[in-house]
Structures are given as C-alpha cells and as structure tokens.
C-alpha cells in the first residue's frame, strides 16, 4: 500500500438492507490518493450497492462516507459529483439523442460552471469546445464526434461514458465493471487508459470487475466483498492466496 499519502475516500461501518436482505453489512474501507483499488466479489456480493451508497444514489442505513476528510453521507448525487467524484454505471449511461461531441460537452458545461449561461451558443464558446475536443481525443472518439450516441457500438458507448466522466475532471473515479461486454482489444484499450489516468493525471480509481486478469494486472490493492462484508483485503499477491477468497469464489466465479 502506498503510504504517506492523503486519504481520498473513507467509508466507516456502512450498512444497507433491502427488506430482510443485507446488501452491505458494515463495510470499512480507506482509499489513498492515486490508488488503483479493485473491489471484487461474486455476484450479489454488494459491489454495486456499495458504489451507489458512496455516490448518493441510495442512502445508507448506518455508517459514514468521507471524501477527502469531508463527510458526504446522505448527500444527493449531483452535490457529490461536484466535489470531484465521478462514476460510470454497470449498464452504460450516455445521452443517446445527443452527438458524441455534445455528450462530452454537457459535463464540461458543468465543470466550467456555465450551467446558467444562455447568451452564447454552446458550440461557439472556445473554452468549452477545446475542452470537449481534448477529452474526445484522449479517448480516441474524435472521429465519431458528430455521430449520435445511440448509433454507437456497445464498446464505443462504454468509451463515451468514460469520456463523459473524465470531462468532469474527477479526483475520484468509480468505475462499475468498466470492461463488461468489451472485446479483448477494447478491454486492453480500457485497461491502458485506466493506467494512464492514474499515472498521468493522478486520479484515484476504485473499480469493480469480473475479469480477474484485469484486476490482478492493474490493481494496487484489492478489497473482496462477500455477502455484503469485506472478507479479505490486501495487495494482489496476498488476496490471490487467501483461502477465504478462494472459498467464496468456488463455484460462483465466472470469467
């Protein structure tokens, strides 16, 4: 674990029940600056619920969430997003009727605090256009700029969502299965991009992933959830050998 760095995310005894089902049952977690953290676990382990609790999609029953030392428990999603926490979803969320360019323009509008600006056409504002084009270039989407979001292939849609969250200029990026449904080539591209974001921009990344090759190749640190509880935590080498992890995954692991 990287030491001497500031904590970006801290979660304390976080709990959430859905009726009698315990989705997240008292999770503690701390992620440091520029860390690449994988949260893994079998289906139904509570990974998505965990993400939803952190980003304000649902309120926890108990426990606290801190972002850079500031408590954000129970905040609404847009306030959390504005602090610098961006997320992607397991099911891709883009703006289907807007063009690729406009999809990325929207978060840039928010980022540059131009939400209430009505005096100029959005496409005529150089700062906005440049920022949007730069993000598109970074993701290799510049050739598709004028295509509608709904016309893209699955992999390109995922990439577009990646571009949308990056345009928010997040400090903490939460990626829910970033490579799900991607071809091997697209997966490699995404993994390369995650590494680049971490190395070049210093973004802290927390991601869930089913593909263990991806997890063990890029994660600095791994948290294993099972039935809403953390059953193991450590570097990839440690987690790989942990008997509880092997047990939790036996018969349930899909790759």
């Amino acid at each position, binding site marked *: 674990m990287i030491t001497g760095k500031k904590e970006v995310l801290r979660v304390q005894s976080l709990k959430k029940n859905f009726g009698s089902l315990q989705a997240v049952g008292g999770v503690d977690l701390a992620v440091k600056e520029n860390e690449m953290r994988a949260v893994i676990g079998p289906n139904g382990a509570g990974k998505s619920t965990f993400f939803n609790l952190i980003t304000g999609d649902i309120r926890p029953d108990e426990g606290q969430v801190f972002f850079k030392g500031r408590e954000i428990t129970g905040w609404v999603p847009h306030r959390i997003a504005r602090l610098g926490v961006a997320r992607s979803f397991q099911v891709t969320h883009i703006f289907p*009727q807007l063009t690729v360019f406009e999809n990325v323009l929207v978060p840039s509008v928010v980022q540059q605090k131009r939400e209430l600006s009505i005096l100029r056409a959005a496409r005529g504002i150089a700062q906005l256009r440049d920022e949007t084009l730069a993000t598109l270039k970074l993701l290799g989407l510049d050739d598709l700029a004028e295509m509608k979001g709904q016309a893209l292939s699955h992999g390109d849609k995922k990439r577009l969502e990646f571009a949308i969250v990056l345009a928010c200029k997040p400090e903490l990026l939460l990626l829910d299965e970033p490579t799900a449904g991607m071809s091997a080539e697209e997966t490699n591209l995404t993994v390369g991009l995650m590494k680049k974001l971490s190395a070049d921009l210093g973004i802290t990344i927390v991601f869930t992933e089913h593909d263990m090759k991806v997890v063990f190749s890029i994660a600095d640190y791994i948290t294993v959830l099972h039935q809403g509880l953390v059953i193991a935590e450590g570097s990839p080498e440690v987690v790989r050998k942990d008997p509880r992890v092997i047990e939790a995954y036996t018969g349930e692991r899909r790759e």
Partner: protein
Amino acid sequence: MNRKILYGIIGAALIVLPFLVTNYWVFLLTDVFIMALFATSFNLLLGYTGLISFGQAAYYAVGAYGTTLMIKYFSSSLWPAIGLGVGAAFVLALVIGYLCVRVTRLYFAMLTLAFSSMIYAIIFKWRGFTGGDDGIAGVARPSLDFFFIKFSLANPKAYYFFVLVLAALSVWVLWRIVRSPLGYLLQANRDNAKRAEFIGVAVKRFRLIAFTIAGFFAGLAGSLYALLAGFISPELAFWTKSADPVIMSMVGGFNRFFGPVVGAAIYSLLKDFIATKTENWMFYLGLILLVVVLALPQGVMGAIQRRRGKV
C-alpha cells in the same frame, strides 16, 4: 435550398400577406403566430427537457386574464398590461413547477393537469373578479407608444405585425436557449436524467428553469391572444386548450425546433378550414391528425428533413 433564402422568402411572404387577404385571414394568421409561440414554448418541455405537461393552458389563460384585468381595472397602457399577464404566468409557473418537477413522465403530466384544472376552477368560480363563465368582453386594445409617437393597434394589420415581431423575437430567444449551455443541460436531462445527475447537474432545478421559461412564453401567447380576441373566458384554461400545443408539436414534429411552428400553422388552418365546411369538424380533424401521427411519427418537419437526407 439554402436556409437563409428560405427564411427570407417566408419573412417576405409574411410581410406582404396581410395586404393581400381579408381581415378574417389577418386575424387567423395572427392567431397562428400566437399558437406557434405557445407550441414552441411547450416544446421546450416536451422536445428539449423530456417533460410532458398537460397543463400549459393554465399559464396561457393567466397571461390572458392578467392582461385583460389590468386594462379593465388599472391602466390602459400596452406594456403594463402585457407585463402583468406575463409576470403572473411566470410566477405561477415557478410555484406550480416547483411542486411538479419532483416527479417525471405520467406523474408529471397528471400533476400539471391537476394544477391547471385548479386554475380553471378558480377562474370559473371567482365571478366578481374574472367574470366567471361569462368571461370578459369588450376590452379595447391599447396603442403602442414609442416615446411621443402613438401607433394604434386597433387595425388588424397593425396588430398582425405587432404579434409577428413579438412572436418571432420570442421564438428566436427560445432558439438561442436550446443552443446555449443551459439548453444542452436540458437535453441531457431529457436523454438520461440519471447520467446528468451523476455528472453534477441538479436536474430538478433545471426542469424548474425550463418549466418557468415555458410558462413565461405561454403567458405571453395568452396575453397576445387576449388583445387579439378582445374576449376571454375560462375555456382558455380548460384542459382541451392544454392539448393544443401537444397536438401541434406532435403534428409538426417535437424532435425539430420548428416542428411546433409548422404544427401550429397546419392545425390552426386545418381546423378553420374544416370547421367552415361541417358541423362535425372535430371528427374529421381527429381523423386527419390520426393519419398524420401514424404516417409521420416524426411529424411533418421530421418527414421533410428525412426526405432531404438530414435525419
């Protein structure tokens, strides 16, 4: 055809037209401009924010009553009268919108319908102030004052040009809004409110902004209508009036900015044409609209642009 040339031809035609036709047609065309503004303001909600309001008649009616009551009780000047109508519609849209934007889709539609029914009931019952179901008649159209020069708007042609300028200006403002950064946030809300929320857009606030803008311009349309007709009644707030901009947007194409304008022209002229031929005009109008909506799901504008290869 070049877009600018097309606009030029339409503009020129609208300037020449009132001098070529009877006053009846001048009246009808003025009404088309008003409905075009009403429908375009409604479409800021349906086409750009993804909200279906079934209660826009409330703001239209409040615009009309505000203007008429101002002239009747306080002042016979033009701008204060229009200002009161539009201002009242704006404030009402802000208050009702605040209560409605918590929900979306059918729930939103039903809430807006419920509030507009309340407005209708208030206008209907408050006889002493609004004239109840008798309405208010015989309010003279004020003149337009430019410092020391007075333009009478009593002439139908004069009022035609007054409405043409105001409606065109308003539609232009709405056009600027949908192209602005704010406009893109509204479209983001329409396309995927969840995605918008999670990039930091306070989606409810932006729905309210759109709703208030739409109410403002619906109020202006109502105000202009009151001055055109010289007679207002609670019918203006009835739910069938709320259906007008919905139908116009569907007919013209709510996915295109100018769809509601085209839809307003088609619907108003068609209604007038059929109503003079038969007593059962509603049946035939319904039949024609049915065919249009089924054959042209993107509306008339959508079909035209598709033919021209611009999907």
